[in-house]
């Protein structure tokens, strides 16, 4: 069966520090991968998605970047964190087009920038 791993679960980082959040998927090949952010409140905002190695689409201009160095690995990064980067970050995968397969989410990373 397929599983998705996301870490760390919580992170407290000072303003101006770098960020690296990692997400890996097991049990499938060539998944679509997504990074979402959930700010205070409940809405989910799509940040990046990837349909293959090295292919990244950015949905929202911001202080963050994403990379996909391996088929089942998706990394969210920042060179210098801002206070506004605080939030709950969720990785998700889909076996193909979301309108056919939907998403499976990871457990999330709670990032607090201080």
């Amino acid at each position, binding site marked *: 069966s397929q599983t998705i791993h*996301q870490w760390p679960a919580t992170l407290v980082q000072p303003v101006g520090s770098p960020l690296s959040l990692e997400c890996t998927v097991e049990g499938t090949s060539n998944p*679509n991968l*997504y990074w979402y952010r959930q700010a205070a*409140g*409940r*809405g*989910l905002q*799509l940040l990046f*998605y990837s*349909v293959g190695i090295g292919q990244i*689409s950015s*949905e929202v201009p911001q202080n963050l970047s994403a990379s996909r160095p391996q088929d089942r690995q998706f990394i969210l990064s920042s060179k210098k964190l801002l206070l506004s980067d605080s939030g709950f970050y*969720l990785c*998700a995968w889909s076996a193909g*087009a*979301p*309108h*056919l397969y*939907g*998403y*499976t*989410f*990871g*457990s*999330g990373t*709670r990032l607090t920038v201080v």
Partner: protein
Amino acid sequence: GESVGLHLPTLSVQEGDNSIINCAYSNSASDYFIWYKQESGKGPQFIIDIRSNMDKRQGQRVTVLLNKTVKHLSLQIAATQPGDSAVYFCADPQGSARQLTFGSGTQLTVLP
């Protein structure tokens, strides 16, 4: 613009009662809808989905109804339990082949 949204941000129900959570969509091309449940501090979990060729789909204690005429779907939870307390999202590809768009969520609170 097109959107997927929810009528109410919060809903409180008595334990044992039925819950109904609503969602409106505006994209006529929408053909697939998913309900997710998100417990505090966790990632959203798939509950049930429905395609536009169906009006109703049932799962274990949950039913999703789709009314394409008024572009409305609802999630019904039978005999609501304390473990049902969570935020519920509807999601829709909105014609995209690459991503889902989520509504803002409804916080369901089950009262003892």
